């Protein structure tokens, strides 16, 4: 799975979490916090992406992630 595909999965999860973002353009450079997600929502988004590729990465590894694409890269790097 490519980084773009992982981002797509996360964007779908974000829109399901916050229906008010339905018509918002969300891209890899967007930050979860700035989109209005809280720390539990963040876990849902990261888990949705991990489940897609059966990754098993500790949540602490995602601490440096600043945007959606960062999360995708961390998953890609760990699964490489």
């Amino acid at each position: 799975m490519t980084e773009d595909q992982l981002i797509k999965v996360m964007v779908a999860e974000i829109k399901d979490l916050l229906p008010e973002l339905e018509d918002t353009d969300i891209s890899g450079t967007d930050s979860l916090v700035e989109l209005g997600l809280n720390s539990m929502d963040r876990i849902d988004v990261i888990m949705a992406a991990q489940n897609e590729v059966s990754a098993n990465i500790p949540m602490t590894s995602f601490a440096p992630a600043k945007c959606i694409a960062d999360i995708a890269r961390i998953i890609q790097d760990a699964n490489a």
Partner: protein
Amino acid sequence: MQDALGELVITGCGVFGAVGTNCAELSDRLQTANLDHLTRRTDPRVLEPWIAGIMPDPDPETAAKSLFDDDTAKKVRRLTRAAANGPRAGLTAALQAWQDAALPMGPVTEDASVFVAGQNTANEVLLSASEAFTSEGRLSAGRLMQMGHDSFLVSLLSAVFGIAGDGAVVGGAQASGHIAILQAVRALRSGETELALVVGAPTILSPLEVAGYQALGALANGSEDTLAAGCRAFDTGAAGFVPTEAAAALVLETAAHAQARNAKVKARISGWASAMHRSVEPGPDCATAVRVMRNALAMAGARKPDMVSAHATGTPAGDSAEAEALAAVVDARTPVTAPKAVLGHGLTSAGVLETVAAIVQMEQGFLHGSPGLLEPIAPLLDHVRERRDSLSIGRVLNNGFGFGGFNAAIVLDQPDLGA
């Protein structure tokens, strides 16, 4: 209650389960004694097939939209997104009860409390996550330790209804429903709270738990006969209970609180008692059953009950002990109903579900029948085999017992019943 401490009343009811998805459907089920909610289940790891009532998928968001408004539906959607069917069903029943009680949605109140009946009701979440953990070799449920607590339903109800007073899960095995109602009753009597939402969380049995009940010999067999007749409560052919998935909800208030907001009272709670019989075993104890029934009736006053809602699970030892206890407490002309004969056994929610069923019957003046009762066990009571109509039911004695020595009885009165 006739003393200075003030009366306690019930002003709202709700139900969601295999037996019906609202109180009107529950009423139909009780009137017709239709058992088409039961199905046969099998699992390769479980020794025998079994019969159970399996609830449809609850949709609290749609319930919130139709009973309240779009804002409530939005809030419910967000709060239940990762929730399992158990809490979703509990919330759906609670939304009905809240609306039935004509309570407003929105204001936060520190004078309301919430009690959820039934421990271990998150087994559904933990066991399915455990299976996935083993088969996939990784955790896939990010919110496991949020959803894996059975207190999640307490939190959910508190968040949806703005309940900022006390909250707790109340467990007493199969008597959990009764014990939770009594917890609410005592909180109301202490003056700590003016209104209590009591929700019976459904038991959604996993194959593991079914195998465990079969090992105890407590579950009815999976035969055509069980499918057609349900559990055989108080019958010589009784051979175990039939589980059913159901959530039920009640709104309890002090009479003063209900009166101040002009609420319609559905029933009064006029007596109660609970007691342990010092046993870790599943078995019943007749003497303690007698004690709680007598104490609850004595608290309610001189008037005799017009109907008994028996615990009667269709388990020979339990039914015999209860029949013997009832023969000692009520006279031989007091009609005895066995709600589990029609509804099945809600387990953790049974006490709340059967209280709703008793209120439905009081309001509509009928007693439900018992399709599986052909040859009653001794001692002989006035068992209600066929539905009885056009009755005035003023007072109900409502029993609940649970594995490990739990005994409870609650007396419910029609609101306009004289002292």
